[in-house]
Structure formats: structure tokens, C-alpha cells
């Protein structure tokens, strides 16, 4: 017992506290989101999301205990096994999963549903950390880069096949950890630049973007020092120019030919949310109204009219931030942003002090994932990101997502608790 107690006491208190605050606040807001002023809505009524969320929280505590009592070496040693098992489940679910709103990503056992894709994030983090911490693996080598990419792309593609675009998109966040571990900056830069160009291509007619790019290319060449104005550099500038133009033109093609109509709509709405306020733009418009009407101090607990009267859809899950924004105003928004950023900073601080490369990389993996969720989820509720159905970590209603984030975080905290015992592989 004494040993167990010490295992718990070694957990980073600040992280656990931040986690607990997030989960409890999340739960309170799930209650507010499902609260119906006409019937006596109770916190613990399991016919409502808030009652069920309470059960998921209790289950999370059990999961935490399991993680703590499990040997810390388990996660390192069995990283690939866990990865393989989850990938297997992800493929299996395509064939035997329940069809929920067109996606085949849920196992259904009675009333209870489980989404293996949620756990794939954790499994991929473990596997990637394991691989990148192996001796002789360095992201300077093309072969290692390809293998690393494969670890990410395999679950990504499988999850795309499950038609869970949102969850699949989260895997893009691994670019952050890959960058952190030595992938040349050009890769994330290309992704960001590609994103910017794609946006430009959607907003401005591609031909104008191309004229702009051509002008830019000419200016770059013009201001090159004389001794740099050689054939090689002209070719490089020319190639970059053509590559960028290609992106711009391909966006139009992708949006119109490749994307499904509802996905295309979501992108259109991002740039012109008022184009269809009662149709597909409804979610974003209503979400902004709910948050915007909160004012500085908010309307107060259970006083949010937009929340109470179902103007915002999916408000206990993907749009949970609306409830916070409406009932607690800017103060509430600031608190939530600070809590999540605080937790991220704390994890990064802990990761940086790891002697084990595995633990450090794993730490950054979960930072990447949580940050990506934060960026997309809150971004979509305030109209800065397209509507992508991914939850706000720790806050949103949902067993699979809560458990997945809990596991991710506490595996890392468990590793951190044993940091002095972990072998350094530098």
C-alpha cells in the first residue's frame, strides 16, 4: 500500500489539478447544455448526457488507477503491440461497427458505444515515440522519415475509410512532434504555406493569386544580390513559383471535384458564414451568437437562452464551448483557454525534463494532439476554422474521447513519475 500511495503522490500535482478542473467544468457545462427548464433535470440522471458523463468520469478514475498501478515499463515495451491492436480494432470496426450517421467507427454493445479511432491517437503517439526513440533512428534520413510518416498515415487512412474525417484530420498534428524531433522546418512550413495558398485560392480567383505570385517571384529575383543571379537560382525560383501556382489551381479542383458536398459547404461557410444562415451556416452563426451574447461576464449558470433552447446543435459535445461562452462570458472563455494552454505548457515543461527520449517524445505527441483539438474546436465555434466534428479535450461530452484523453495524459504522468528510473537513451 505504501508503495502504491507513493506512486500516486509522485504524479505531477499541477497537471492532475488542471485535468480535474477541466473535467469538472466540462461536466457542469454538459449539464447546462442539456438542462431543460421545464423538467427537473438532474446532474446524475443517466438518461441525460450529464448523468452519463458522470459515469464516464467515474470510469476515467478507474482507468487512471489502472494506469498508475501498471508498471511504467509496460507502455514503452508494448507500444507497438498496443498500436497494432488498436489498428486492428479500427479496421474491424469498418466491417462490424454500427452505422451511426453514415460513419462506421463505433462498436455498439447494447446502449454502450466505443470509438476505437479515439484511442488510435494515443496508440500512434506511443508507437511514434517508441520508433523515434530507437537507437539509430533520425529524421535526417529519408527512410526514417518515410517510416515515421507511415506510423501516422496508416491510422489516418483507415479512419478516413471509417468516414471520420474530423478524427483523421487530428493526425496531421503529428507534424508538430516530427518537427520537434528534427524534421526540417520546410515540411510544416509547406503545410502552413499550402494552407494559406489554398485559402487564397478559394477567396480570390486563382488567376489573380498567380499574377501576385509571379510578381513576387520577379521581385525576389530582382533583389537578389548580383552574384546570386545565376541559372540555378532562376530555376529554383521558377519551380517554387510553379509549385505554388499548382496548389492554388488544384484547390479549386479539390473543392469542386474531390470533396463531398457537405464538406465543400463547410469550407464555403468559413469564408462567408452568412451565405446560408438557416442551412449549413446555421451551426456557425448560432455558435457565434451564443458566444457573442455572453458579453464580458456571461449570463450565469443555466441562464443561457441559446444553450437552454437548443439553438446551437451538438452543444454538449463539439459545441460545448458555446455554453461556456454564453453563460460565463469572456471571463469564462479566458479561463478555459488559460486552463488548456496552462496544461499544454505544463506538459511541455514536464516533457523537457524527461531523461527518457521515449517519454519526452510521447509528451510532445500529446501536446500536439491536445493543441490541435483546442485549435480546431474553439476555432470553429468562433468562425475561424471550418466545422470539423472533433471534441474539446476534457470538456466535451463523450466516453471515448474523455477516456482517450485521460489515458494519453495519465500514461505520460505515469512515465513522468518514474522519470528518474527511465533509461536515458540519448
Amino acid at each position, binding site marked *: 500500500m505504501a508503495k502504491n500511495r507513493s506512486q500516486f503522490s509522485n504524479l505531477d500535482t499541477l497537471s492532475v489539478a488542471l485535468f480535474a478542473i477541466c473535467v469538472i467544468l466540462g461536466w457542469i457545462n454538459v449539464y447546462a447544455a442539456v438542462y431543460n*427548464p*421545464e423538467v427537473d433535470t438532474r446532474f446524475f440522471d443517466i438518461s441525460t448526457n450529464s448523468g452519463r458523463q458522470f459515469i464516464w468520469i467515474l470510469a476515467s478514475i478507474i482507468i487512471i488507477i489502472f494506469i498508475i498501478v501498471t508498471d511504467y515499463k509496460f507502455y514503452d515495451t508494448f507500444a507497438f503491440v498496443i498500436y497494432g491492436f488498436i489498428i486492428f480494432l479500427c479496421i474491424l470496426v469498418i466491417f462490424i461497427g454500427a452505422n451511426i450517421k453514415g460513419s462506421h467507427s463505433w462498436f455498439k454493445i447494447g446502449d454502450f458505444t466505443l470509438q476505437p479511432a479515439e484511442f488510435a491517437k494515443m496508440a500512434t503517439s506511443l508507437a511514434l515515440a517508441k520508433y523515434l526513440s530507437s537507437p539509430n533512428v533520425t529524421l535526417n534520413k529519408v527512410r526514417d522519415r518515410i517510416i515515421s510518416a507511415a506510423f501516422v498515415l496508416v491510422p489516418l487512412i483507415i479512419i478516413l475509410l471509417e468516414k471520420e474525417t474530423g478524427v483523421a484530420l487530428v493526425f496531421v498534428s503529428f507534424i*508538430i512532434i516530427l*518537427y*520537434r524531433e*528534427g524534421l526540417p522546418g520546410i515540411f510544416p512550413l509547406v503545410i502552413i504555406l499550402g494552407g494559406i495558398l489554398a485559402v487564397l485560392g478559394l477567396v480570390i480567383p486563382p488567376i489573380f493569386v498567380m499574377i501576385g505570385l509571379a510578381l513576387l517571384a520577379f521581385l525576389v529575383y530582382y533583389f537578389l544580390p548580383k552574384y546570386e543571379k545565376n541559372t540555378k537560382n532562376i530555376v529554383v525560383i521558377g519551380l517554387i513559383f510553379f509549385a505554388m501556382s499548382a496548389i492554388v489551381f488544384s484547390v479549386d479542383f479539390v473543392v469542386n471535384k474531390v470533396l463531398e458536398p457537405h464538406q465543400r459547404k463547410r469550407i464555403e461557410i468559413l469564408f462567408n458564414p452568412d451565405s446560408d444562415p*438557416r442551412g449549413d451556416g446555421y451551426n456557425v452563426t*448560432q455558435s*457565434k*451568437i*451564443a*458566444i*457573442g*451574447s*455572453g*458579453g*464580458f461576464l456571461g449570463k450565469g449558470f443555466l441562464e443561457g*437562452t*441559446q444553450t*437552454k*433552447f*437548443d*439553438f446551437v446543435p451538438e452543444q454538449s459535445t463539439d459545441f460545448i464551448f458555446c455554453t461556456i*461562452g*454564453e453563460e460565463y*462570458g*469572456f471571463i469564462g*472563455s*479566458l479561463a478555459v*483557454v488559460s486552463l488548456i*494552454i496552462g496544461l*499544454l*505548457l505544463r506538459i*511541455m515543461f514536464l516533457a*523537457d525534463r524527461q531523461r527518457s527520449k521515449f517519454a519526452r517524445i510521447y509528451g*510532445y505527441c500529446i*501536446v500536439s494532439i491536445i*493543441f490541435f483539438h*483546442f*485549435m480546431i474546436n*474553439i*476555432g470553429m465555434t*468562433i468562425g*475561424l476554422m471550418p466545422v470539423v466534428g472533433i471534441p474539446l479535450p476534457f470538456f466535451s461530452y463523450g466516453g471515448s474521447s474523455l477516456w482517450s484523453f485521460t489515458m494519453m495524459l495519465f500514461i505520460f504522468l505515469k512515465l513522468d513519475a518514474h522519470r528518474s528510473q527511465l533509461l536515458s537513451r540519448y
Partner: protein
Amino acid sequence: MQDENRTIIIRGFIFFVAIVYLCRLFYLQVIDNSYIEAAEDNAIQKVTEIPFRGLIYDRNKKLIVSNAPVYDLYVTPKKVKNIDTVRFCNLFQISIDEFKDKIERAKIYSYQRPTLFIRQLSIEDFAKVQDDLVDFQGFSFQTSAFRKYHSSGVANAIGYVGEISEKDLEKSTEDYYRQGDYIGLSGIEKYYESYLRGKKGIKYIMKNSKGAEKGAYKNGELDVPSVPGKTLYSSIDLDLQNLTDSLMQNKVGSAIAIEPNTGEILALVSAPSYDPKLLSGRNFRKTYGKLVMDPMRPLLNRPIQARYRPGSTFKTIQSLVALQQGVITPSFTASHAGSPIACTHNHPVSSSVMMALQQSCNPYYYFVFRRFMLDQNLSETNIFKRSAINLKLWDEMVAKFGIGQKLGVDLPSEIKGILPDVAFYNKIYKGPNTWKFSNIYSLAIGEGEVTVSPMKMANVACILANRGYYITPHIVKGIGTSGSILRQYSERKYVGIDKKHFDVVVEGMHRAASPGGTLSSGAIMADISICGKTGTSQNRVGKDHAIFICFAPRDNPKIAIAVFVENGGFGGSASGPVASLMIEQYLKGKVERQAYKEQVIATNYSKNVVSKSIAIKTNSGELITPKAEIKAAVIP
């Protein structure tokens, strides 16, 4: 070192995103206030509560007007699915184009919220369609109220309500009415609009995204309750009113009864009238246009809007002003000789005012008026100038009887009538001192340029009954539970004639309404002494208008009456019987002369009426100017 840099870059990126989001949140939540409004638009619906309009009772607390529930059909475009349009249109009796048009308009207003589709279905209509409504998704009923008239005989006096016209909406200075609101458009409904309408209330109701009601916003703290309209107690005696209404059947004209010592209007009939039900609720649109275009002009409130020459009833006033000025004495005698106006009655020389009134002697009053115009202010030797001076004097005295003035009756659109003055004749004869008594002597017998409304002559009957004063006639004797009345209706207005002169005229009127007088014998009652004066008003087209003014009983009069029957011929035979039966009803509480009553009802004078083809452009509520009567009044 590279690791260090990259950690910093990652941290920097995270911070960058967080800062951008916080800025955006600050903008949405603190700077841009439009979202607060948008949220209220979403969830909080401001519902205007239209209060019940005030009830109207008669003087014996019998209900005249109340409110009856009706059903308004609302449509919510979003919920409308698979409607069998043809069946719907048959059921509600609208055209398919109308249906489509209304749906389109509803969509423009709101897709999610209910819009008024068909207004005011009666309970009967509602019962007919109620069962079928389940097949028409998106349509629902809400109850509201419309005016229910319990007596068909008070149409013109009570008036009607209708949707406020755009013109009135623009004119309205107070910020009260909204498009589609109901407003009193004529009669008491219009004059007492501000009392009857009550005060609108506002309710803030929370609605969810499906538009379902979710209770009061902030527990109703911001709500303003509606205040029901005030109950009005009309001075109308419903039994008398209904009798009068039936007596005026088959006739065109007016019948008015007033309680002389209070000025309270007991009955006010304009004939022909209309069934007030036709202008209530949904019927309004259908029938209003028809009523406006009807050549008999049922919407014209003749007692206060029609103009006639007073004819011989004016001799009462002529007697009084002449006696008061001392230009004659009660025993003034005049023969027929030398008068340019012939006497219509076969009688010997009139040897007194009483006798002249009894016989309605035209030459007598030619000489009376001649004396007034020429035998005063003899210091002015120019006969033109003397006529003008004396006309001015005469005008001042006659004006006190309300002639040529608005009486200030509590009904809208009362006319002034004409009391010709010096300026009037100067204009006709193109310049001052171009006319003299011999040009204007028609005034002596109430013909020529003077015109009155029936109400004015009823008021003259009151003055005679009161022997010298009147209280402005009014149709509402109590407002609200306190029963107060407007201040102007309690003030006695004296006409400046000594009471002793009234005794002379009243005696003459009594003789006129007795055997040997001008009142038809059937109208004379053995047990009630009537004082009256007949009149026949000359008229360019068709037969003369028949006029009778009277009061009864002679001492301590309870009722004063004026009856005008257009193209009815002699006042004594066309109008007198109506007045006689009204007196019987009011003083005895019932009519004993049933056969006589039926005979009076059946007597048809309306066939004599030369219907004037009138094209009146009018929106609801617009005054209908009785131009035809003006034309008829202008001297040939």
C-alpha cells in the same frame, strides 16, 4: 540548440493561436454587441397583447357591443408539407393565387415563426374546418376577438372598427398603432377610440429553436400587462332606438331623440342603415366596398352629416329672435297681402305668433323677418347697408342656437351647416352693399341659403323644451366604472332669449301639434301633449324633404325629437307620425298604437328619393363628404 529553438517555435505558435483566439473572443463577446440582439431575436419573442376593447351599454345597462372570440389561422412556412392546395382553398374559400401569395409573404416575414394567414374565422367557420386541419401541417389557430353588435338598429351611432389605414398610420402622432391594428373608424367607436382601445401589453416569451414557447423571459419582469378598454355607457335607449330604426324603414333620413335637460341622445337613427355584422370581423373586406358604393349611402351618418334647409321649423327661431328684439309682439298680426311668398295653408289672417306657428304661415314670417331686417337701425338710411347691419345682428342671435356652428357632438365628422352672413352674400352678389332684404327674404321661412343637420334641429327642439338653453348633445353618458363624462357635456348653453318669449312659441308649437295644426291627426295623442313644428324643406330634385321637430310633454319635457324624411313631402304627415310613436314609446315604455305603427313602417318614401350616382373614392376611415346635399342646398 536546435531542440531549444524548435521548442520555442512550438510554444510561440501555441501562444500565437491562443492570443488570436482570445482577441477574437474579446471582439465577439465584448466589443460587438450585435450578437446580444441576435440572441434575443432567436430566443425571446416580443408578443403584443391586444386588450379587449371596451364594452358599450345603453342607458338601461343593456349590452349593445361586446367582444366575441374568433379564430385567426396562422401558418409556419417551415412546417408546411404536402398540402393539398385545392382542398385547402375550397375549405377556406380562397383562390389558389391568394393562397400562394399569402404563403410567399409569410415566408418573407419568417420561415420559422407563425404568420397570420386568415383572419377572424367565426366559431361556426372554425368548427367546419377544425377536423380537417390535421391534414394541413404548419397551420394553427389562435383565438382573438371581434366586435359583436347585439342590436342591428344602432349601426351608424356606434360605428365600426377596422384595420387602420396606411394614411392614418402615417398621420398618427402617438406611437401606438401598428399595421394590422384595429381602430374605430366611425361613430362612438371612432370618437371614443382612446378610451375603448385600452392599452396594449407586451409580453416577452422565450422560445426554443423549434419555436415552441418556453415560458416568460426573466419571469415576466419586463412584461407590461395590457389594460382592457373602458366600458362606455351610452345614453341610447335601446328600445327607443330599435323602434325608431324600424319606423325609419322604407325611408331615407334621420330621426333623433334627445333628453332636453341633459343633452343625452336617446335615439339616433340614420336611414337607410346597414347591419353592423356586415362590418365586423372577416365580413369587413367583403362588404365595405359595397356599402360605400351603395347610392343610398348607408354609411353616411345622416343625423350629423347630411344637410337640409330647415324649412318651416326655422320659424320657431325667427319668432324668438324677433320677439326678443321687440320688432314684433306676440299679438303681431299680418295678412297674406303684399308677401311675395304664398301661404301653403288655407287659413284666415294670422293674428298672433301662436296662430302663425299653428298654421305655419309663410307670409306672416315674411313680414316678421322684414321687420327684423328693415325696421331696426333706422339711423342707417341706405337700405343695403341697413340690411347688412341687421343681418349681422340676426346672425349673432341665430348662431347661439347652434346654426352654422359645429355643436360638438361626441361623434366624428359632424358638419357645420351654413348660416349665411354678410360676407357670404357679398361673395354671392359680388361686392358689399349690392344686396338687401328683398334678395334674402327666403331665410324668413328657413329656405334659401341656410342649411342644418338634423342634429341641429333636434338641439333646437331641446332649446325650446328647456325654454332657453341646451346642453351639447352627446351619446355617451358615462366612461368607465366611475361613469364620468367629458366636461363639455355638463355645461348649459343659454341662447340669450327671455323665457317669456319661449312661452309664446311653445304655445304656438302646442297648437301646431294639436287638432287644427299642421301635424297629421293620426300623430296626435289624447294623453300626451306634444309641442311641435312641421317643416318642408325645398329641394331641387324630387319632392320636398319632410321635417318635424317637437318635444313632449309640454311641461317638464322628457324628450325632444327631430325627424327628417327625405322627399317625404309634408313634415306633418311624413315625419310627425314617426316622432309621435317615438314619444309614446319613450314616455309610456311601449307602443299601444300597433296598427298605426305598422302603417308608419310600411309607408314608403324611399321610392321618391332620386338616388344620386356617387363615385366616392375612400379608404376605410375616410370621411364621406355629402357633396350631393351641398348641391341641393344651393339656391336655384
